[in-house]
C-alpha cells in the first residue's frame, strides 16, 4: 500500500474531521427522529422490535439455560441448610391448610348451588401457555421480561402472565416465537384491581419501583395495611380474582402494594388465555355463516 505523503495528510485530516462531525450530527439527528417515530408511529416500532426479539430469543434461550441450572444448584444448596426448620414450618402450614381445604370445599359446593339457583352466567374457561423467561433487560427505565413463546404458541397481546404466587404482568408485544411481558412494576403498567374485604375498586400503577401504587381509590374506601389486592376483571382483559399482592404501606402519595411474585425467581411464567364467551360465540357464528355461504356457492355451481 502507498503511504500517504505529508501534503495528502494535511488536506485529508480537516476533511476527515469535517466528515466525522457531519456523521455525528446526522446520526444524532437520526436517533432523535427514531424517538419521534416511536411516539407517533408505534406500530412500525413494535413490528421492528418483535422481529429483532424473535431473532435473538433462541440465542438467549440457549445462554439462559446454564444460568438457570447454576442458580438451581445454589438454591438447592441453600435449602439443604434449613431443611429441618422448613420441615417443621411446612408441617404446621399443612395442618392449617387442611382446615382451609375443608372450608373451601364446603364454600365451593355452596357457591355452585347458589349460582345454579340464580342462573348465573358461568365464567369463561381458562387455558394456559407455559413459557420460560429467557430475557430480563434490567436497567432503570423498564421492567419487562422476554419469554420464549409467541403467536405460534397461542400467546396474544393483553393476556395475563402469572406465576404460582400471583399476577406478574401482561403481554405487551408478541412475535412469532417470543413475547415481551410488561411487569406490574413497570412505569407503563396499569391494572384494574379490587382491594380488601370491602372490594374497593382501584387501579394498580407501576412506577419502576418494587412496590406499585394504588390510584383512583374512592373517597369512601377503607384500606388497611395487609389487605389483599386481586384483579377486578374490569376491562375484560384479565380474569377476575387473580391474586396480586398485599397493601404494604402508606406513602405521602398513597397506598403501596407488595406483589406476591418473587421477581428474582421468575424462571417460568404461565400465560392465561382468558376468552370471553361472547367473543368466542361471535367467531363461531361468523364461521358457521361462512361455511353456509360456501356450501350455498358450491351447490349453485
Amino acid at each position, binding site marked *: 500500500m502507498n503511504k500517504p505523503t505529508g501534503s495528502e495528510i494535511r488536506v485529508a485530516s480537516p476533511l476527515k474531521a469535517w466528515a*466525522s462531525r457531519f*456523521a*455525528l450530527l446526522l*446520526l*444524532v439527528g*437520526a*436517533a*432523535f427522529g*427514531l*424517538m419521534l*417515530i*416511536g*411516539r407517533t408511529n408505534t406500530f412500525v*416500532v413494535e413490528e*421492528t*422490535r418483535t422481529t*429483532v*426479539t424473535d431473532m*435473538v430469543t433462541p*440465542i*438467549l434461550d440457549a*445462554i*439462559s439455560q446454564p*444460568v*438457570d441450572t447454576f*442458580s438451581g444448584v445454589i438454591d438447592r444448596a441453600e435449602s439443604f441448610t434449613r431443611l429441618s426448620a422448613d420441615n417443621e414450618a411446612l408441617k404446621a402450614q399443612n395442618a392449617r391448610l387442611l382446615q382451609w381445604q375443608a372450608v373451601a370445599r364446603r364454600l365451593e359446593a355452596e357457591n355452585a348451588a347458589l349460582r345454579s339457583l340464580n342462573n348465573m352466567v358461568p365464567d369463561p374457561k381458562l387455558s394456559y401457555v407455559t413459557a420460560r*423467561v*429467557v*430475557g*430480563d*433487560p*434490567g*436497567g*432503570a*427505565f*423498564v*421492567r*419487562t*421480561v*422476554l419469554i420464549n413463546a409467541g403467536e405460534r404458541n397461542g400467546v396474544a397481546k393483553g393476556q395475563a402472565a402469572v406465576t404460582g404466587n400471583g399476577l406478574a404482568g401482561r403481554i*405487551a*408485544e408478541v412475535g412469532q416465537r417470543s413475547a*415481551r411481558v410488561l411487569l406490574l412494576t413497570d*412505569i*407503563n403498567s396499569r391494572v384494574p384491581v379490587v382491594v380488601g374485604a370491602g372490594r374497593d375498586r382501584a387501579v394498580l400503577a407501576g*412506577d*419502576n*419501583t*418494587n412496590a406499585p401504587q394504588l390510584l383512583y381509590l374512592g373517597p369512601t374506601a377503607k384500606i388497611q395495611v395487609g389487605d389483599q389486592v386481586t384483579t377486578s376483571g374490569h376491562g375484560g382483559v384479565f380474569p377476575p380474582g387473580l391474586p396480586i399482592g398485599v397493601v404494604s404501606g402508606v406513602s405521602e402519595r398513597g397506598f403501596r402494594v407488595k406483589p406476591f411474585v418473587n*421477581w*428474582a*425467581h*421468575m*424462571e417460568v411464567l404461565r400465560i392465561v388465555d382468558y376468552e370471553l364467551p361472547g367473543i368466542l360465540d361471535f367467531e363461531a357464528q361468523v364461521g358457521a355463516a361462512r361455511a353456509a355461504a360456501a356450501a350455498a356457492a358450491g351447490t349453485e355451481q
Partner: protein
Amino acid sequence: MRQEEGVWYRLDVVARSVSPFFVTLLLVLLGLVPLRIADLSPIVPALALIGVFFWSVHRPYLMPIWAVFLIGLLQDLLIGSVIGPGIIGLLIAHALVVWQHRFFLAASFAVIWCAFMLVAAAALAATWLLNCIAMLSYVDPAPLFFQYLVTMAFYPCLAWAFLRGQRLFQR
C-alpha cells in the same frame, strides 16, 4: 496455493476488523440474560457502553460511528425502552473519546478508567434525561446511579479480557 492463502489471510483480516462490533453486540445480548439474583435486575452494568468506550479508545478505526449507532439501536430495541436515548448516550461516549483521542494515546490504564467514569456519567445522564422527556414522566435516577457504579466496577474486568483477547489475536 498462494491464492488460497490469500483468501484465508483476507478472511482473517475481516474477522479481526469486525470482532469489536460483534463482541459489543454479544455484550448487549449478555446484558439481557436473566441472572435470578434478587434486586440485581435494575442495576445491571451497561455492558455495551463499556464495549463502545474500550474500542473507541484502543481501536477507533474498528469502532466507526455507524457501528456505535447500530449497537445503540439494537440495544434500545431489545431492552424495550424508548428508541433513541440509548443510541444518543453511546454516540456521546464515542464522540467524547474521538474528540480527545490525543489524550488517550499516551494514557495509562488508571487514567483511561478515570476518563471512563466521566464519559459514562455524561452518556448515562443524557440517556436518563432523554428517557424522561420521551416518556413524559420523572424516572427515579437512583437505580441508574447504582448501575453507573456497577458499570465502573465492571470496566477493569472486561477491559482486561479485551486486552488479553487482542494480544491473542496479534500473536
